[in-house]
């Protein structure tokens, strides 16, 4: 779309709509509850939008109108929907539209509608090359905000639609190398590993504990490792070893919280052993008393539940 400053664009657009009677915003009653203080230009453009919604017109000028409105309000989902209708009716290049959407996305990275718009376009074109380009686009967006939830969900959708998972593991490695506290990257790695390398439990525990030991208060790698340890005895052994490196009095209490929580969960997995459940309860005691006192009520409750279960097992045998 032409790169004209907004006010000039609006004046040109208005000229093309000279035959259309703008529909004013509906007034609800004598006192609107939450009137929005729209800029005048936006209000004028919306007048034409309402008119063409009513008339059903799909044309170049309506396409231009939608492009202008989303610059003011990228969240207006009806405008995006009308834009798509025009694009299809006019058989416009959807690939070029991705370029337009990229500019709007750069200005509004946390907007739901733009990401969804891109996805609809990609699925409609259904070309794997676009899929790969899209992954690169998302990587660029992640460079400025590595935790953008929309960017990550969109990435997942693209990967699943085009089935192009190579390079994803390496991406998560790079991101976690740069910031081991990036929970989004840990989550993505989990999804990728489940998909590509489900037998890599020990490797994943080693990858995670290497990062966890450098920053023990970072919950993400600990919880990540635990998920693999729960279903793999060798992975559980590796994780236990890593925890034990930190679980001694020489280590600051707050640094013991995560490894203690992990030991609790690993003991608690042994549901048929009252000894294990009692050991888990003792972990909960330490967490409540000194290692994570902020959440003492949670840990006290866990200790109770674990002891009750341990007693039930002991009296049954």
């Amino acid at each position, binding site marked *: 779309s032409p790169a004209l400053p907004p006010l000039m664009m609006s004046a040109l657009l208005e000229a093309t709509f000279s035959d259309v009677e703008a529909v004013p915003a509906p007034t609800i009653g004598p006192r609107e509850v939450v009137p929005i203080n729209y800029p005048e230009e936006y209000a004028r453009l919306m007048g034409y939008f309402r008119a063409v919604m009513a008339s059903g017109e799909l044309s170049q000028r309506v396409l231009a109108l939608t492009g202008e409105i989303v610059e003011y309000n990228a969240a207006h*989902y009806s405008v995006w929907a009308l834009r798509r209708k025009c694009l299809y009716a006019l058989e416009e290049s959807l690939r070029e539209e991705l370029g337009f959407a990229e500019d709007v996305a750069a200005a509004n990275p946390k907007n739901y509608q733009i990401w*969804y718009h891109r996805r609809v376009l990609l699925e409609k074109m259904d070309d794997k090359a676009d899929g790969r380009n899209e992954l690169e686009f998302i990587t660029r967006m992640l460079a400025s905000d590595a935790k953008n939830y929309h960017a990550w969900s969109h990435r997942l959708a693209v990967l699943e639609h085009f089935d192009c998972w190579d390079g994803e593991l390496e991406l998560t490695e790079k991101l976690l190398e740069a910031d081991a506290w990036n*929970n989004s990257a840990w989550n993505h790695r989990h999804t990728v590993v489940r998909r590509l390398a489900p037998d890599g439990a020990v490797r994943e525990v080693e990858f995670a504990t290497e990062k966890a030991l450098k920053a023990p208060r970072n919950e993400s790698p600990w919880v990540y490792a635990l*998920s693999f340890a729960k279903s793999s005895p060798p992975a559980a052994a590796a994780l236990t070893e890593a925890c034990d490196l930190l679980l001694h009095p020489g280590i600051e209490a707050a640094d013991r919280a995560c490894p203690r929580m992990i030991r609790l969960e690993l003991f608690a997995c042994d549901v048929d052993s009252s000894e294990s459940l009692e050991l888990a309860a003792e972990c909960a005691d330490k967490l409540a008393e000194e290692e994570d006192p902020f*959440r003492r*009520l*949670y840990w006290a409750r866990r200790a109770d539940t674990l002891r009750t279960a341990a007693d039930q097992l002991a009296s049954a045998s």
Partner: protein
Amino acid sequence: GGFGGSEDQDPHVLYTLSAVQVMALLGRLDRIDGEAAARYVASLQLGDGSFTGDEWGEIDTRFSYCALSTLAILGKLDAVDLSGAARFVQRCKNFDGGYGAVPGAESHAGQIFCCVGALAIAGEIHSVDRDMLGWWLSERQCDGGGLNGRPEKQSDVCYSWWILASLCMLGCRHWIDSSALAAFILECQDRDDGGVADRPNNVPDVFHTFFGIGGLSLLGWFDQHAIEKPHRNIDPVFALPVDLVRSLNLSATVYKDADEQAALFATMPRPHLDVAPDASPPPAR
């Protein structure tokens, strides 16, 4: 039959829920064509149990919650495949016990509220890993007392609602430090105009004002500090006043408060069917 955000806007399940909630608050539910609204919501459900937001097909567990809550308020939950809806939500459970927008998406406090709420309405809350999720939710409390939405993110008043309501539904309200959270919310109130912002000293908006007040209600703060002044408490499943939830006869399956003796503030009366903490799952429907 659905509602849009304003006149001439396309219908969407988000705004349909808001419309139904507003009409319920105003006592004007009779003015909504309930059948048509229920048909609209039902039309959004896909074969895998998920819900799209509108005709354009975006799927998100937010829409599962909006759909089920709308239908519950209208008394038309039988319009959809409830167990299918629950099954999709369960697929969104992650390795950390939390839930995301779609299967595989990162656990996020807002999505967790929607998933736990949807499961509560569908009668499937027992499928939640209460220990893991309870831990995850209570881990969101930062040193300043506020709650964040994901690990290593900043605290924000809106999470007072998403997290606290989730903890309430799981019977674990007391697993966070209530007075620290209350102090954080109060710090977010603007002394000049009275609104509540996302963080202390930021500009208030109506969303964060709602979340802050809702959070204080769930903490029992008004019962403690405004006992002489008329106030209503909010229900964690439907985000409507508790008395309205009762008069509409809405129900959901939630966990009883597990730590009543540890309560810092008064406990809230519950209109729902309670599930004892260690009960085994109910028989299949």
